[in-house]
């Protein structure tokens, strides 16, 4: 044992002991300072970071307001759609996960990766980047079963807009689609992947229908699993909208327009509410809300009939003879017309070297105002136009709403055109000619109107002179935009002429006669092109589709306190009476008799054949003249 103690007198090195104590001091000081820095100085910063780490907030989607028709039938609803989102902070291996998603869905990895790279900067930390907006049920089942093995992937349930009658109401309802960058900038409450209205009512009433998203807060663990979810803010559902549209009537109008291009406007003459606003051809709103494919879009864009166009408010046409009521109104207003005074119609009149013909070769003989309107005598109105000149005609027409927006609650409405001397000089660099007055008086020439403007005017004739704002919502207050500047007696002359056009055996709207219902109407034929001699010799159904005249009919109908104005335009429908008349008749029967007239299949087939005819004209033809030709066309007006 003794050698164990042989170093008993040796002391440990002093320097070493000092070194050890110094090391302890250094460690103590170093760590104290660091702890002070982390926990006291930066404590709040880290506390906030820890909160952000653990607490995540997600939006609770609010259901968009439903849209119903005036009878409560659902037009637009919300259905759940399942989207696949990726929270990149939770995802350990983005590429691997995207490969897996590609395998599940059959998409290309490179496409997914491109999508990811495109959006990843815009997605806030810990929020989902939507990889696939709409999963099919089989994909959903597959992914949901395997999701737990792929942290970061989440399935999000979002309401998706579904249109019950996508084709019938596309131009009224419009559609919703993902908000773009500009929209998100304007509305800070919008996030990536939110739907907003892009067209139609969906667009116009966006703020009313969207509602407000709620906010839910939950804790997550490191795998992104949700624990302890808590609702911070309940979502507010969007307001429900009831349209003034009658689904049955709309359906009927669309049926009668099938295979045609044209529009139907049916307005309640007392309230201004539209019961139908049909335009054909149409498209399906649902195609847009579920994301239009490149091919679908190309098909819509390249369709020669332009299905996206709302022909009732966005297409402008020469009004044709329908405009004679406005000219008659102008004559009465300026006291330049005595309704009893007669004019002799010999089938044509001369102005300088030019000959202006009446549609009836033999002429109408002695014609007063009523006869001129009922039989649509052109010569009577040529003389009227010469007397009134463009200034008065244009002033009066503008006073009754032409050349101006109707202010309907739909985007991109067109105002049409009511020409003036100044306009023509500016547009063509030449003055107003005498012949221009004559053409204008029978609704040809430069004048362009929308079917809705026509409906509004005739509603005014029916309701005692009030020009009403066209309304699309059932609960909207009636707005009187202007009064037709005519005394009730003078207005009655116009209304009476309308009724006589139906009731008189020589009237052009005889086909509208409906037992027990007071119906009035006016036909119109709007020339599209100056007919060459070759074309004139052709029978109606041999004229190529695109050279055929547009068919107009405006009508009023009244029974037991229900009063409606109807305007129908059928593009290239040839004659107002035969082209547009049956549609008006079907509308009147539906409104007053509750009868649903179905368009005969033979008629549809004929219309289809007519359109195909345009593809192979019989003979080489002169190029198509513009709708408002520089040189006034030789006036011929059928009916």
């Amino acid at each position, binding site marked *: 044992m003794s050698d164990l103690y042989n170093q008993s007198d040796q002391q440990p090195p002093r320097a070493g002991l000092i070194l050890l104590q110094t090391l302890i001091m250094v*460690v103590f000081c170093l760590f104290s300072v*660091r702890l002070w820095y982390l926990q006291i100085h930066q404590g709040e910063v880290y506390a906030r970071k820890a909160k952000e780490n653990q607490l995540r907030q997600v939006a609770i989607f609010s259901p968009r307001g439903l849209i119903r028709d005036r009878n409560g039938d659902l037009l637009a609803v919300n259905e759940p759609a399942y989207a696949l989102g990726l929270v990149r902070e939770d995802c350990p291996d983005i590429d691997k996960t995207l490969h897996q998603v590609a395998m599940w869905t059959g998409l290309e990895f490179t496409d997914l990766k491109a999508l990811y790279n495109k959006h990843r900067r815009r997605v806030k930390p810990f929020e989902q980047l939507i990889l696939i907006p709409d999963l099919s049920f089989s994909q959903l089942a597959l992914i949901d079963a395997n999701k737990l093995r792929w942290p970061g992937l989440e399935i999000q349930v979002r309401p998706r807009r579904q249109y019950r009658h996508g084709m019938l109401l596309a131009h009224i309802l419009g559609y919703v689609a993902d908000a773009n960058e500009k929209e998100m900038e304007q509305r800070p409450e919008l996030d990536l992947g939110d739907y907003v209205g892009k067209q139609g009512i969906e667009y116009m009433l966006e703020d009313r229908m969207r509602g407000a998203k709620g906010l839910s807060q939950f804790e997550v663990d490191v795998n992104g699993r949700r624990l302890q979810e808590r609702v911070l803010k309940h979502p507010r559902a969007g307001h429900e909208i009831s349209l003034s549209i009658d689904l049955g009537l709309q359906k009927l109008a669309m049926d009668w327009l099938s295979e045609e291009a044209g529009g139907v406007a049916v307005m309640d003459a007392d309230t201004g509410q539209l019961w139908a606003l049909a335009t054909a051809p149409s498209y399906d709103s649902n195609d847009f809300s579920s994301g239009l494919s490149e091919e679908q879009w190309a098909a819509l864009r390249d369709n020669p009939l332009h299905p996206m166009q709302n022909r009732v408010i966005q297409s402008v046409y020469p009004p044709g003879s329908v405009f004679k009521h406005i000219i008659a109104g102008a004559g009465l207003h300026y006291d330049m017309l005595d309704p009893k005074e007669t004019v002799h119609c010999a089938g044509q009149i001369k102005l300088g070297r030019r000959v202006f013909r009446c549609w009836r070769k033999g002429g109408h003989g002695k014609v007063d105002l009523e006869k001129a309107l009922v039989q649509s005598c052109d010569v009577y109105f040529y003389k009227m136009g010469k007397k009134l000149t463009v200034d008065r005609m244009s002033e009066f027409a503008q006073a009754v709403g032409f050349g101006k927006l109707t202010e309907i609650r739909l985007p991109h409405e067109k105002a049409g055109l009511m020409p003036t001397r100044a306009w023509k000089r500016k547009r063509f660099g030449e003055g107003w000619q005498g012949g221009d007055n004559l053409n204008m008086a029978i609704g040809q020439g430069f004048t362009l109107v929308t079917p809705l403007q026509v409906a509004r005017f005739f509603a005014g004739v029916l309701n005692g002179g009030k020009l009403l704002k066209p309304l699309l919502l059932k609960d909207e207050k009636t707005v009187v935009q202007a009064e037709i500047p005519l005394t009730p007696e003078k207005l009655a002359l116009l209304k009476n002429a309308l009724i006589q056009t139906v009731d008189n055996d020589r009237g052009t709207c005889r086909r509208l006669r409906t037992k027990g219902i007071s119906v009035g109407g006016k036909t119109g034929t709007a020339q599209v092109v100056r007919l060459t001699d070759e074309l004139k010799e052709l029978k109606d159904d041999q004229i190529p589709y695109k050279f055929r005249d547009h068919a107009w009919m405006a009508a009023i109908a009244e029974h037991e306190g229900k009063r409606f104005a109807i305007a129908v335009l059928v593009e290239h429908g040839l004659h107002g009476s035969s082209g547009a008349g049956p549609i008006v008749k079907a509308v009147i029967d539906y409104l007053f008799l509750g009868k649903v007239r179905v368009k005969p299949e033979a008629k549809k087939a004929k219309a289809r054949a007519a359109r195909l005819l345009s593809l192979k004209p019989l003979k080489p033809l002169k190029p198509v003249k513009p709708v408002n030709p520089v040189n006034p066309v030789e006036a011929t007006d059928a009916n």
Partner: protein
Amino acid sequence: MPIDRRLLFYINWPLLGVAIILFLLGVLNLYSASGFRTEDAMSVAPYFNKQLLWGLMGFFCMIIFMFFDYRHLKTMAWPLFWTTVLLLFAVFFAGKTIYGAKRWLDLGFMNFQPSELAKIAVLIVGARILSKEREPLDFIRLAYVLGVGLILGGLVIKQPDLGSGLSIIMILGGMILFRGVTARVFKTCIVAIPCLLPLSWFFLHEYQKRRILTFLDPTTDPLGAGYHIIQSEIAIGSGGFWGKGFLEGTQSQLRFLPERHTDFAVAVFGEEWGFAGTMILLSLFCFFLYQMVIIARDARGLFGSYLAVGVFFYFFWQILINTGMVLGLMPVVGIPLPFISYGGSATLVNFCLVGLVLNVSMRRFLFKQ
């Protein structure tokens, strides 16, 4: 072996007390660190009761390490050294591969890590060599001592277990510093080490290089290695002055903090007990270390002093590296914090070594018999 009652009186009770307090704090913290919130409530992983069990075993081993006279170790130093070397070789051939590294020997009833034994061996052999003479080390003696350390450390590093290997060399390095080196050696080292250090870069594994790079800029890899550092700093920093309270740490309860029951256990502590708690813990550790300095100072004989110094450095490096890492002052290295981090064999070794210094302290007055 009968034990003198006076020996019990001379035990450094403060050291024993602070070791037990640290261990119990560690268990308490482990309870929190191994608990995690689930959808409905809390659930606790079984780490903390396992740790208690290991602690009891450790306490038992500590008493064994106090019973025999530590000076017998002097004669056992070389046999222990060779046995360790043999076992380290055995690991290469018969070792169990876990996580891609051969570090374990399967003893049937438990997995044994010879690298833990190597840490004990190095301080005993080191104490034996260094306590032989008093004067500062010259080149030859330094080479001799370092050679012994490098055999053990090198074998451990080859496993690969860089953390343990380096700590073996660093334990010996600390003891060498305690002894002191000649001025010439010191000057040479001052020049040579900074020059040689960059060379070691080429011997590092890819993941080790990445850790060092990540340490320099954690944001380069916020979801990988940098994630540990960022989350650890957030955990500690968010504790503030008073902390979030026991079991209230969100970083750890929600499992944002990785390795929260082992290497990053002190981050859990910092989050829940705040600056007040971490300062107390730091003070306890410094007190713990200081008691070993006192034991080294008062030991009867240089061998005892060097043993105490070896144990001092065994703990010192771990505290420095682990805490430095958790506080974002050092790269991420897998070195646990004594008593606080979960780990069976580490706890066992910790208590054994505390027993060893207590052994030194209780026999400091034996010559007065």
